[in-house]
């Protein structure tokens, strides 16, 4: 798949253009340009390293939103051996922004839920740009309860700009759908592993994110509000989204430091969009390892640890202690 480079990748693109031009002009000629080629190649390597080894929060947000980034169903076909998608919340409809169903990770049975974005306009209409309606959250919970019934773990792949702020969503009580999931996921008597694979947009992400392990891909972000929304409130101007992204501490490494994320899953250089197979292999490795660990725990211990994990979040001063 063709990957359109992001603005900050332009220096690399320019060098690659120079390299291609040099190779082109020297082909079939007598002069030896191998030294020049080697020099540019070295420079490309160095520039890539410089750019990718110190990505800013905003650059990571752009990678997380990259249209060529692997989405939930891409990981399904790369990491899982089987997937039977199951549809509908049994009340209103089927939310295609939130596919879910039985899946096999190697031989392990599990219930997979997640957000799915579209890659083009047509697909995005169907997937609502990965913004789920109440039906999506209610379908996800229905199927998580099904997983509980048959004793299989839940894998949640999070990738949403946020729950859908639509008229119908409000009329069908989107807030309650999310709140209900938060409470019920705390009581599910099966292991849950959640992974933020792209965008972790606020309550819409958390609505399937109460888990025994919360993992995050290296360039994903997870935030209480979008950088643009934060900038609009703080600086009255969405142009300040890069500053807001920095201030929100929304990158995987920031969140690992804050204890909200248990493990950061490495991505190939430049981001998962450049090497889906490698990204998927890393994801699969982390899923298998974490599922093995949490599945070994007795249910009572699992639930107590899940409660305490979320119970501990927050920083405050308690003068009594």
């Amino acid at each position: 798949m063709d990957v359109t480079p992001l603005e900050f990748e332009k220096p690399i693109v320019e060098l690659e253009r120079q390299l291609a031009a040099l190779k082109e002009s020297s082909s079939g000629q007598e002069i030896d340009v191998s030294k020049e080629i080697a020099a540019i190649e070295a420079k490309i390597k160095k520039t890539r390293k410089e750019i990718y080894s110190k990505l800013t929060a905003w650059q990571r947000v752009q990678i997380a939103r990259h249209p060529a980034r692997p989405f939930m169903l891409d990981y399904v076909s790369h990491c899982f051996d089987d997937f039977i998608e199951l549809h509908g919340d049994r009340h209103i409809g089927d939310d295609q922004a939130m596919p879910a169903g039985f899946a096999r990770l190697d031989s392990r049975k599990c219930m997979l839920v997640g957000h799915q974005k579209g890659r083009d306009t047509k697909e995005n209409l169907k997937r609502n740009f990965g913004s789920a309606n109440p039906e999506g959250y209610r379908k996800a919970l229905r199927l998580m309860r099904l997983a509980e019934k048959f004793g299989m773990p839940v894998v949640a792949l999070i990738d949403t700009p946020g729950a859908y702020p639509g008229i119908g969503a409000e009329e069908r009580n989107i807030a309650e759908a999310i709140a209900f999931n938060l409470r019920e996921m705390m009581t599910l008597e099966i292991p849950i592993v959640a992974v933020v694979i792209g965008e972790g947009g606020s309550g819409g992400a958390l609505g399937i994110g109460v888990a025994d392990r919360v993992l995050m891909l290296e360039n994903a972000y997870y935030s209480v509000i979008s950088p643009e929304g934060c900038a609009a409130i703080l600086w009255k101007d969405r142009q300040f989204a890069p500053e807001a992204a920095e201030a929100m501490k929304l990158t995987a490494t920031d969140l690992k430091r804050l204890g909200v994320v248990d493990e950061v899953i490495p991505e190939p250089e430049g981001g998962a969009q450049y090497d889906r197979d490698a990204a998927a292999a890393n994801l699969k490795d982390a899923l298998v390892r974490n599922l093995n660990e949490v599945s070994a725990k007795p249910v009572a211990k699992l639930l107590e640890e899940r409660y305490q994990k979320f119970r501990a979040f927050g920083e405050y001063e308690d003068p009594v202690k």
Partner: protein
Amino acid sequence: MGIFKKPSLKAFGRKKQDMPEGLWHKCPHCGAMNHQLELEEQLRICKECDYHFKLSSQERIDLIVDSGTFQEIHPKLATVDALKFQDYASKVKKYKKLTGLQEAVVTGRAKINGNPVVLGIMDFRFLGASMGSVVGEKITRAIELATQERAGLILFSASGGARMHEGILSLMQMAKTSGALARHAAARLPYISVLTDPTTGGVTASFATLGDIIMAEPRCMIGFAGPRVVKETTHQNLPPGFQTAEFMMEHGLVDLIVSRTEMKDHLSRLLGYMMPSGSAVS
């Protein structure tokens, strides 16, 4: 200024010229001007449209709790600027001074017509009663206390949502409070959630909509996304009354819309049905 033609100020035994300036409050719902003294007299309810103006946490306590029974818990829990977020520390300082409150929620034990409850009341004056670590922690401790003491739980919500200045930690308060409610529910204890103007964002999407009973004050705004965001995202005109208590009741979210004048009575009657037998005073 035509609406000022017949101000009913006689009831207060004062003449109009005695009234200090700036004591008129415009009703955010219907636009009618209500005088301060008049509002105080009628529990801050708009005389024209029944809109319930925002109350301070203390006013709310005075209104629904048996006199002298409120014992605040964890009053000193204090905000920390965990992310070193622009202007946050100074903002908190400012609102502390402005409101005399430590944070945006007051919690404690209380009795309502003799029924022991644990009570939490959000105060919109403090940073829009947004939920950060302290709000989440105080509410969670209140829920856990209610579970431990086998008490009913009543939370009055009003909030602009999760508090941006504490980033992801604010988001996690949604899961934390909801988790504590799962345990309170498992103990078969009643939780009454009362939504007041406005209840939005991460508070609506967590403890506020998890009540066994969800009550709302008339005309209050209840929503997940703000109306401006909904309008801008969907490019549609919003239906009349969108996100009001009445609209949300019509759409199945709210059990009861209850006037302030009857709030205490309703709370104790509902507790009478739901408290474990023997522990409720009906």
